[in-house]
């Protein structure tokens, strides 16, 4: 048993809610754990500090946990995801000028990603014909759900994300100023940054990521594989504390308290009101004051969101293959799936109940394309006309 204080790294985002509440609302202490949360400035730092053992656990982009385990881009450090800290929670925000161009080109409802993706194709084509610069989209990390959600959406409208537009990595705190300065025309990022852009009247939220896919593993509570086998008791305690915090977050009567805790300068550090809007899934989407609500916008504890699902890991791996980040192989697919550990989750909390009927049959619920098949990724990927060649 490890006796010293556990160090857990996080990035100041609303989807670190379960982590912060577990620490600051006593759920970790109730398990006898003494934890120090360390606020970080980049996903690279979180990953590297977890990999080399400076952190015991971390709030991590789900695709980074997989990339690290598969050795994509870096050395191989097996990571396990003990629990989903959040599903969904991202949004695509576009500058007012692009919003108007899309609205003019759209045939159909602007809340329908099919309609907006088709409109994007038209806008891209007319810009190209006029000799304009390609549209630039910001996203926070190459191995991120944001990257895959953006690509999925635009490719469904026959826009090639590598040929027809530019995708650039931007740290989330710089997204809004980059949209304002015209460095990017749009971005896909987590809360609260989309709301910040709308509040400043410099952006329109085009889509919640949950409109693109109903269930996408966003952030996980990650530990090194070796750490998990060394400290099984700590794993159980971490899972229990975070699952309870996730459940606590889903009770509306706790919302004010949660928003106040997350708003603290050493936590997420944004106004409590922005956190409240995010957690209640009701966001102002346009500077004219239009709101959009979705019970799926950000899932922390409800709809069985916290339990890690290997189907999610397989879907993320499939996106890496689709966009040329990873070669396709059975071994890598199996390795990606085994990053998500429902067995450890169940060992701490008991057998799972039945999945709620509201949830998509393939575990993903994308707005277009065939149902996802985690056992035949090749056939799934072959159904998409826009993708990089399989390696």
């Amino acid at each position, binding site marked *: 048993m490890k006796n010293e204080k556990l160090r857990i790294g996080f990035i100041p985002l609303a989807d670190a809610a379960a982590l912060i509440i577990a620490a600051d609302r006593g759920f970790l202490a109730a398990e006898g754990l003494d934890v120090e949360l360390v606020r970080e*400035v980049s996903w*690279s730092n979180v990953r*590297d500090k977890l*990999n080399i053992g400076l952190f015991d656990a971390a709030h991590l982009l789900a695709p980074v946990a997989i990339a690290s385990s598969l050795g994509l*881009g*870096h050395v191989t450090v097996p990571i396990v995801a003990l629990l989903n800290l959040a599903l969904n929670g991202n949004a695509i925000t576009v500058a007012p000028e692009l919003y108007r161009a899309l609205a003019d080109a759209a045939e159909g409802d602007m809340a329908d990603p099919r309609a907006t993706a088709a409109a994007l194709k038209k806008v891209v084509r007319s810009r190209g014909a006029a000799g304009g610069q390609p549209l630039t989209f910001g996203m926070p990390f*190459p191995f991120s759900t944001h990257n895959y959600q953006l690509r999925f959406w635009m490719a469904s409208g026959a826009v090639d994300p590598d040929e027809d537009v530019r995708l650039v990595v931007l*740290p989330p705190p710089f997204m809004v100023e980059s949209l304002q300065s015209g*460095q990017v025309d749009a971005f896909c990022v987590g809360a609260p940054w989309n709301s910040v852009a709308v509040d400043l009247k410099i952006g329109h939220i085009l889509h919640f990521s949950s409109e693109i896919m109903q269930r996408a593993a966003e952030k996980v509570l990650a530990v090194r594989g070796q750490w998990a086998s060394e400290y099984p008791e700590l794993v159980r305690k971490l899972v229990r504390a975070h699952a309870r915090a996730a459940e606590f977050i889903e009770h509306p009567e706790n919302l004010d308290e949660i928003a106040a805790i997350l708003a603290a300068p050493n936590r997420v550090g944004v106004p409590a009101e922005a956190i409240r809007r995010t957690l209640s899934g009701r966001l102002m989407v346009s500077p004219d004051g239009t709101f959009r609500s979705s019970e799926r916008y950000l899932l922390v504890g409800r709809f069985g969101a916290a339990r890690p699902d290997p189907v999610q890991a397989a879907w993320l791996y499939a996106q890496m293959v689709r966009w040329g980040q990873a070669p396709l192989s059975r071994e890598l697919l199996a390795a990606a799936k085994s990053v998500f550990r429902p067995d450890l989750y169940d060992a701490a909390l008991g057998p799972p109940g039945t999945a709620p009927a509201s949830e998509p049959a393939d575990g993903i619920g994308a707005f277009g394309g065939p149902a996802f098949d985690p056992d035949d990724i090749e056939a799934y990927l072959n159904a998409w006309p826009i993708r990089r060649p399989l390696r």
Partner: protein
Amino acid sequence: MLPDPSLRILIVDESPVRAAILEEGLREAGYGNVMRVGERTDLLSRVYAIDPDVIIIDLEDPSRDVLEQMFQMSREVKRPIAMFVDQSDTSMIEAAIDAGVSAYVVGSLQKERVKPLLDLTISRFNAFARLRAELDHAKSALAERKLIDRAKGILMKAKGLDEEAAYQLMRRTAMNEKKRIAEIAQSIITAAEMLK
């Protein structure tokens, strides 16, 4: 191993002072090819244009994530390697992290060629941190000096003391209350302002 003067070194640092200290150190050590980028606008295309062998970036700079895009396999460019993903040299990693240094080595440069460069960077980052700490200390010492002088003036006026006696009174009180003279001085100033 001796420094390798042909290495193209890029320093990405928002702090111009620290970047200058590092650049100077690198040049003194014989590295002639040192470039700096201070602002983050369009960072990646600047990096591609400069085409460095080694990139040194502040560990606390969020733009580290921007550099991660260089790892993407679809690009047919020399692929960079981050310094501390190679876990073979833990003492070097710890020293780098303590100093707040992160480095990317582009292409297949041997680690031995980069080691003296990284050692030097770590020591310059540490020197900068020490400098800043000394400067902070000097600033707060100056501020305390001013507080004590003001409090002394108040005591001299209120109690008709000379300068030395006023100072001795504060010193004695500080010792009795196990506080610093500056804290006693602050209390005197606060009290005087309340009684105005």
